[in-house]
């Protein structure tokens, strides 16, 4: 009787799990099956053992059939339900079952910096011919918890991500690999210390060149929150996990243009989940992950020990592979890889070779090179590169020639020139001291006899030839088309500061869109900046032909793209160009609002990376001016998300090579880009009246349940929090930028 009771309860749990996945009691009579099980539970003592066993057997067969059927026709939204089910394994289960021993660092349960992020030093072992070999690793991941409210469902707060970064650096110092486990629906959207976006950006920036192997496993990959731990050398994913740019509900609310509090129709959520391509197999096809770890057909639960054995094997194998790729001994590498492959074919129990996971200096350099190549390749199949044929050939030739020229000029000649200059300067200063003693009495006598007026001091600043005021320009200034309207507008701060109504031609003409009373900045089109920020006719666009596409074949997106193409005459939401600011040559990437609200997809990421590389090649400062960015383009799914690490890597490489990277935010700058390649900049500024942050007020309200003050995302508050380093007035933009280039760039504008 005891066994039948257990069996019945087990069947009941399985049936409820299936119902949770399908969320429809009418599906293949699952509701009916559950009610039969419940009736059976009540009548269990009234039935004979044989009848009960027969009944349970029949129900078990029926349930197994239904499970098989559900697994065969699993939709994307059902995968999301699997991931969100409380029965699914968490990081705690992995620590207990995959690793042999572990000790948690920086927190214990609720007594924690951020209970949503768990860090542990763990030991993972492999058995070869009855001998056990163990490896030390740093395990970092999100903990969803077992219905523990304080875990926040695995949503890391900024200080949780900072904790993760702290221990990543510890792992780097100790030379042990990092195993990161991603179980997050997204980062917790608060703008404190100094904000979710900054924390993620800093993690990405550091991980881009973290000198230790990083292996990640994703079960629930919610956009930016996942990226904070997800930039790795090998990305694994559970076969029933999901990795997405936004939750299907969020995407549905945007697609359906629903108001806050309105119920999102189930069909729309399901359609969006399908369109977003969030499952493991979809992500493998898109190239955003490297390998899938097979789970049971309806997902692994807390007690699937076979799955944990497989996961241990996969984690060891992945770390081995990453380490082996960096080894210089090709023969050994090939042998080890081959053995690993054989191991994979025979089952996942045995690994025949012991590989030391410690890496030497040159191997670490190779590791970083491979990491860079891996992320640079992400999304490269998903943008449209228009130019082909002879023109393309000539273009490429010019590029190669330019690269050769700049390498010769800055890579070979400049360092020698600098060394020679340094030696000369030292010699001349010593010589001067010696000569001074001898020549001073003679010179004094000469000056006394033939007094001279003081010569003008020579201005010697590289690239700077003119010291004229920037307000006097020798061309007809560009006036915004917004000024062509004969009416007045009211400043939004009129009630607070008593601003007078503004006549539109004055406002957008003479006042440059700035309220003369309170300094509120009215939005201006991006062209205004192109015309006023840079020297006349100095803007030379490049990579214009790289166009945004519809990599996921998102229903209806093609039409939207076409509309924006027609409206703007451009193919992507970023313009990359060479320009001059008061004769200082710079490379600029400008995100603008008119094309898909400045969102970032594969084309934008590629253009940004190429601009970054161009700045690196030509040894010029790199400016990212963000007229507006709405985040990662949801229609490109994880291809868009992968642009975050991709661009951050490019930025890091540029800054490491000695480049000066400045970011200036304007209007509205939110989400993914701010949480990666923009937020990673050492120098970030904002134009007044900018709103910037990680998530907008609506998302914050819906996620945290708390309302935020109306000025929560203002530039002033971003400055207070330490996100940005200064606020610039639009009218002084050119002057401030020029000043920043000179003061932060130094005389060479490029450090090395």
């Amino acid at each position, binding site marked *: 009787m005891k066994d039948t009771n257990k069996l019945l309860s087990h069947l009941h749990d399985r049936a409820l799990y299936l119902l949770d996945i399908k969320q429809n009691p009418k599906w293949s009579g699952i509701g009916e099956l559950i009610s039969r099980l419940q009736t059976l539970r009540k009548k269990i003592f009234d039935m004979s053992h044989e009848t009960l066993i027969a009944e349970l057997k029949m129900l078990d067969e029926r349930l197994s059939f239904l499970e098989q059927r559900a697994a065969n026709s699993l939709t994307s939204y059902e995968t999301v339900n699997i991931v969100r089910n409380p029965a699914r394994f968490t990081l705690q289960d992995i620590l207990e079952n995959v690793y042999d021993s572990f000790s948690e660092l920086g927190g214990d349960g609720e007594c924690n910096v951020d209970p949503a992020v768990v860090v542990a030093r763990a030991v993972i072992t492999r058995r070869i011919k009855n001998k056990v070999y163990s490896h030390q690793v740093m395990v970092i991941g999100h903990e969803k918890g077992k219905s523990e409210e304080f875990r926040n469902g695995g949503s890391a707060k900024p200080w949780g991500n900072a904790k993760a970064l702290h221990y990543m650096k510890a792992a780097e110092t100790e030379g042990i690999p990092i195993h990161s486990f991603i179980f997050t629906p997204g980062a917790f959207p608060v703008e404190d210390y100094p904000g979710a976006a900054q924390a993620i950006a800093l993690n990405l920036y550091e991980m881009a060149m973290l000198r230790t192997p990083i292996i990640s496993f994703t079960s629930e990959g919610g956009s930016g929150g996942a990226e904070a731990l997800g930039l790795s050398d090998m990305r694994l994913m559970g076969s029933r996990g999901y990795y997405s740019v936004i939750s299907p509900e969020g995407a549905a609310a945007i697609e359906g243009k629903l108001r806050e509090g309105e119920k999102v129709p189930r069909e729309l959520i399901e359609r969006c989940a399908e369109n977003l391509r969030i499952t493991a197999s979809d992500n493998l096809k898109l190239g955003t992950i490297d390998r899938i770890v097979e789970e049971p057909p309806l997902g692994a639960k807390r007690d699937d020990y076979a799955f944990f054995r497989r996961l241990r094997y996969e984690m060891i194998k992945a770390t081995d592979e990453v380490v082996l790729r960096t080894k210089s001994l090709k023969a050994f590498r090939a042998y080890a890889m081959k053995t690993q492959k054989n191991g994979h074919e025979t089952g996942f129990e045995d690994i025949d070779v012991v590989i030391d996971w410690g890496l030497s200096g040159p191997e670490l350099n190779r590791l970083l090179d491979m990491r860079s190549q891996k992320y640079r390749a992400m999304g490269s199949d998903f943008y449209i590169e228009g130019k082909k044929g002879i023109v393309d050939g000539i273009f490429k030739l010019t590029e190669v020639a330019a690269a050769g020229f700049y390498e010769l000029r800055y890579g070979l000649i400049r360092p020698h020139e600098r060394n020679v200059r340094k030696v000369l300067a030292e010699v001349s200063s010593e010589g001067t001291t010696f000569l001074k003693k001898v020549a001073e009495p003679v010179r004094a006598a000469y000056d006394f006899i033939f007094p001279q007026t003081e010569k003008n001091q020579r201005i010697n600043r590289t690239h700077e030839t003119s010291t004229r005021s920037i307000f006097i320009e020798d061309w007809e200034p560009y006036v915004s088309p917004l000024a062509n309207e004969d009416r*007045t507008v*009211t400043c939004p701060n009129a009630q607070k500061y008593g601003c007078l*109504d503004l*006549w539109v031609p004055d406002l957008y003409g003479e006042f440059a869109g700035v309220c003369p009373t309170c300094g509120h900045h009215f939005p201006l089109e991006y062209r205004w900046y192109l015309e006023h920020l840079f020297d006349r006719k100095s803007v030379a666009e490049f990579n214009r032909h790289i166009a945004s596409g519809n990599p996921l074949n998102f229903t209806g997106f093609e039409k939207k793209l076409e509309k924006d193409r027609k409206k703007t005459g451009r193919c992507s939401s970023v313009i990359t160009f060479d320009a001059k600011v008061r004769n200082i040559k710079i490379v600029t990437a400008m995100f603008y609002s008119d094309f898909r609200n400045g969102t970032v997809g594969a084309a934008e990421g590629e253009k940004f990376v190429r601009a970054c590389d161009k700045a690196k090649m030509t040894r010029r400062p790199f400016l990212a001016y963000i007229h507006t960015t709405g985040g990662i383009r949801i229609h490109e799914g994880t291809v868009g998300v992968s642009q975050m690490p991709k661009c951050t890597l490019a930025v890091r490489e540029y800054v490491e090579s000695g480049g000066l990277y400045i970011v200036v935010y304007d209007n509205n700058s939110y989400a993914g880009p701010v949480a990666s390649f923009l937020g990673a900049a050492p120098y970030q500024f904002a134009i007044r009246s900018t709103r910037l942050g990680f998530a907008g007020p609506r998302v914050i309200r819906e996620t945290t349940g708390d309302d935020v*003050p109306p000025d929560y995302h203002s530039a002033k508050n971003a400055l207070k929090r330490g996100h940005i380093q200064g606020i610039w007035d639009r009218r002084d933009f050119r002057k401030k930028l020029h000043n920043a280039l000179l003061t932060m760039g130094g005389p060479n504008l490029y450090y090395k």
Partner: protein
Amino acid sequence: MDTNLNTILEEIRQNPFEKQVITTPHTGVLTFSVKEGAQVKGPGGKWLQRPGSLLFTVERELNSKKIFSPCAGEVSWLHTELEGSFTEAFEPVLTIQYRLTKEKVIERILKQVLTVFAAPQRARYFLSPDFSAAMEKNACPAIKPGDEIFIMSLMKRDTILPYSGDGGVVQNVFFKSGSIVDEGTPLIGVCPPENLESIQKLIAQVRSEWE
């Protein structure tokens, strides 16, 4: 009880409403969005970020400016002739009327009969030892301008603060000695000695009677 004080209370009783006159901010063509007798809402939300009910719009130079209600209440009077016409600046357009609360009534009475001495800045305030001793002897000691009755303590620096205002007796001390008080918060209320008793009675009466 003093007749003057009685009159104040009687006046409030007869007309227990506060009225706020809304005027045009500048010239323009006016369009009403409310009718006489309509109930309107004041600004809402934790930070009063949501504007109140739309009262009317004034259009000038194709700029249609919306005027929202600054308080909750009832539109008691509407200058209906202005609808659709060009209106001068600062022209009374409508009146919003709302019933006075108990606190408002007390505040209004005290405003008329008391001299309030407010904290000049956010700091920790103490009563001076002499004044404390006087308070112990007599619950409502007399003070005159220039009496050193407060010690303002901020960032480990104590400053003696002399009283300024009309002389009289201290009717009430609004803060606890040694507590942190925000700028502008009343510290003490002073009234002429002859009015003291009647004021206290009046406040007690309002507290018990007013709904």
